């Protein structure tokens, strides 16, 4: 194993033993191999730098590189955006540790030196984000490498496997050239993605949103704090913003849209699917500190005469996602509110049991204009998980769930 910082600056000799130059930069060429050091850039004082390819590197030790070819076989260096530079793109930069779910700064990069056909290939195994790398960087060039190694062995290691490293590249074109993907990042819980985004600079945040699919992006954005939500969405183009917002619950979408600049929110609403936009616009008419401002319009409504079996079939048929399943709202023949059935009761009921028998007592509902404080009190008094919102004619128009209450209370703290 060898550290990247031990190779950077190393004197390089060709097969005849002549000094060629010093290693100024190392490049990973993702087009060839995603973890191999594909090129060494050698600086030669006032002459133009040249490049050694991976199959021209004979051996590598701290501070010294020996090539397996003659100097004349090396090409002149041409900058290439598709190469990942060790020094410029990795060392001292922030990366996302997708395993530890946080943003860290790279102190050093660990390379494995593998012998193949008389050459040495350097493969990136892990990045060092701990004390060992820091001490190495500090002492490098002052103390001989072997002495640094001895000190490092006594220190606790903090490293991240190369597979778990997610490189943050704000430039979308370069992302493509470097073949950077965010598969592992996208697998994290949206709340973790949001936490990571909060640690980054605005451009870097934007680059993360750009790499996520709409559904994940929607979930992650919904978890961001209000200020960041608006900032991130306002920087998207309205079409993409609309696609992402359509994936959100109407109440989350409404909260977000009303915080946007009036012009942006108009553009986004125009781009959105008509039905979803109508849902959101309906919610926008309520002030955020009322029941209407807290509620979601995505509720499951069934007739009070329906049986448990029919309701379950209904839920399966409409593929209602489990996280939207809170209370089932019952209506009578005039489509007015008749009661609510907590999912727990539904779970335990017999298949042919009628919904009306399972309804929660007493029958509770609020108007959309009810103040949030009164809503909190009702939740507390009856230990509710959900509460129906009805209009003047007693038609159910939405529901408040306990997570809306928690968010709203936190915002008020």
């Amino acid at each position: 194993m060898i550290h990247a910082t031990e190779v950077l600056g190393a004197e390089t000799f060709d097969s005849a033993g002549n000094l060629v130059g010093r290693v100024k930069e190392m490049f990973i060429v993702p087009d060839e191999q995603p973890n191999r050091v594909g090129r060494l850039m050698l600086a030669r004082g006032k002459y133009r730098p040249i490049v050694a390819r991976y199959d021209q590197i004979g051996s590598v030790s701290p501070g010294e590189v020996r090539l397996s070819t003659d100097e004349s076989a090396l090409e002149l260096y041409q900058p290439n955006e598709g190469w990942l530079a060790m020094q410029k793109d990795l060392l001292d930069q922030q990366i996302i540790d997708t395993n530890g779910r946080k943003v860290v700064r790279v102190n050093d990069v660990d390379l494995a030196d593998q012998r193949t056909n008389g050459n040495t290939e350097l493969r990136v195994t892990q990045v060092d984000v701990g004390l060992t790398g820091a001490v190495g960087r500090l002492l490098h060039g002052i103390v001989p490498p072997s002495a640094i190694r001895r000190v490092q062995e006594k220190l606790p290691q903090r490293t991240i496997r190369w597979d778990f490293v997610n490189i943050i590249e704000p430039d979308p074109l370069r992302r493509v050239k470097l073949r950077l993907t965010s598969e592992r990042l996208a697998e994290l819980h949206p709340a973790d993605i949001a936490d990571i985004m909060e640690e980054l600079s605005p451009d870097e945040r934007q680059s993360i949103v750009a790499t996520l699919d709409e559904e994940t992006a929607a979930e992650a954005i919904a978890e961001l704090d209000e200020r960041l939500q608006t900032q991130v969405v306002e920087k998207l183009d309205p079409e993409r913003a609309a696609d992402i917002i359509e994936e959100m619950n109407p109440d989350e979408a409404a909260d977000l849209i009303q915080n946007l600049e009036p012009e942006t929110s108009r553009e986004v609403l125009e781009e959105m699917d008509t039905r979803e936009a109508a849902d959101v616009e309906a919610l926008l008419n309520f002030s955020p500190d009322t029941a209407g401002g807290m509620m979601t319009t995505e509720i499951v409504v069934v007739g009070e005469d329906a049986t448990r079996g029919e309701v379950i079939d209904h839920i399966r048929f409409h593929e209602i996602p489990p996280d939207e399943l809170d209370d089932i709202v019952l209506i009578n023949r005039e489509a007015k509110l008749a009661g609510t059935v907590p999912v727990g009761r539904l779970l335990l009921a017999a298949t042919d049991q009628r919904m009306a028998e399972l309804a929660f007592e007493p029958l509770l509902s609020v108007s959309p204009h009810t103040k949030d404080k009164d809503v909190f009190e009702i939740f507390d008094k009856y230990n509710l998980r959900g509460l129906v919102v009805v209009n003047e004619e007693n038609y159910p128009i939405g529901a408040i769930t306990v997570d809306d209450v928690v968010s709203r209370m936190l915002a008020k703290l």
Partner: protein
Amino acid sequence: MNTWITLTDTLSTWMAQGKGLTRRTRPLRRRIAVFLAVVGPGLITSNVDNDAGGITTYTVAGAQFGYLLLWSLIPMTLALYVSEEMCARMGVVTGKGLSDLIREEFGFRSTFFVMLAALLVDLGNTVAEFAGVAAAMQIFGISKYLSVPLAALLVWMLVVRGSSRQVEKIFLVACAFYLSYVVSAFLAKPDWLLATKETVIPSLHVNSGYLLMLTALVGTTIAPWQFFYLQAGFVEKRVPARQYKHARLDVLVGSISCMVIVFFIIVCCAATLNAHGLTNISEAAQAAQALRPVAGRWAADLFAFGLLNASLFAASILPLSTAHVICEGLGFEAGLDHKLKEAPAFYSLYTGLIVVGAGIIMLPNAPLLKILVFSQVANGIWLPVVLIFILLLINRRDLMGQHTNTLTFNVIAWATGIVMIVLTLVLVYAALFQPGSAGLG
């Protein structure tokens, strides 16, 4: 402060009217919230600048030279604004702290030494703040063995137990307490006409005492650590580039309000100490005591209270800012939003600075004077380095895009930088070789 509140209210009202009251009342409230959310770092940073060392210097300046140095406040306001504005702009545009940027652009080793220097310099400053607490409380008859540990505990609890938002509110209140100096100045019944004249018309005197005092004024007003704190403040507030003008206004209001307080401190001391021939004052606490017979009990108590407030305020921000900057640069978790367990390096640095800073003051024969001079010298050596880093970074097109300095701004900024560097080198020289003459002596 009052003018500041009125100003922000008026501005947010204008903005709300300008962009139209859409849909419902929410946007108006939101715009005020947006503005207030941006405001803070600039105001807090500039005010915390008037810390124990600063107040001492201003006091001595007023006592020794009366109104004669007031004219320097206007160019100093400009210098303060120019240098702080660059950090605010970097914070807003890049979304990264100053130490982050130094790390990314200049590598690990430079960062390490920058951080080490920051740690030493800030430790010296922290000691000076606790010395200020001890001195102020002594005026109220409370021993330093009681006041310093209490202050250290208070400061530590405030930051570790409080949430970011609460802490910032308390800091804003601390900014308001600087008004006690304004009241003190009015109680001292100064010659306002003369004060105004001396502020507007520069009067240069060529004698070494006067020049050294001038240098000391500049040196204490622009402290290197404040750039890190200011930039981090704007990054943490997540001010978007679009709202940069609010951030700039915040910095401007902060710079001016800082200098207004300095004005009143100098005026207060000029009208009392200087007018009564009490020119041989070397520290703020001494000034507060001397004020008693000439300006009355209230003026003296308010003066001492101002010193206490300033020292406590700076004692809570300095260690916090230092711990933050160091952890950020070296890649440890930092920030008050982390729990103790998540950011051990951050909290131990923070605690360590307070414990050591207060501990040194508690030593029975602590060489306080030497420590104060040391912290002053360290600031002086340190400032040019930080300024040069800032000027190099702000002109990087790949970082700042279209927000690099304009030519005019660069000329002003480099000129400010060079003047600052020369002045502080003079101050360092004076403090090292002529202790007692550089204001803090």
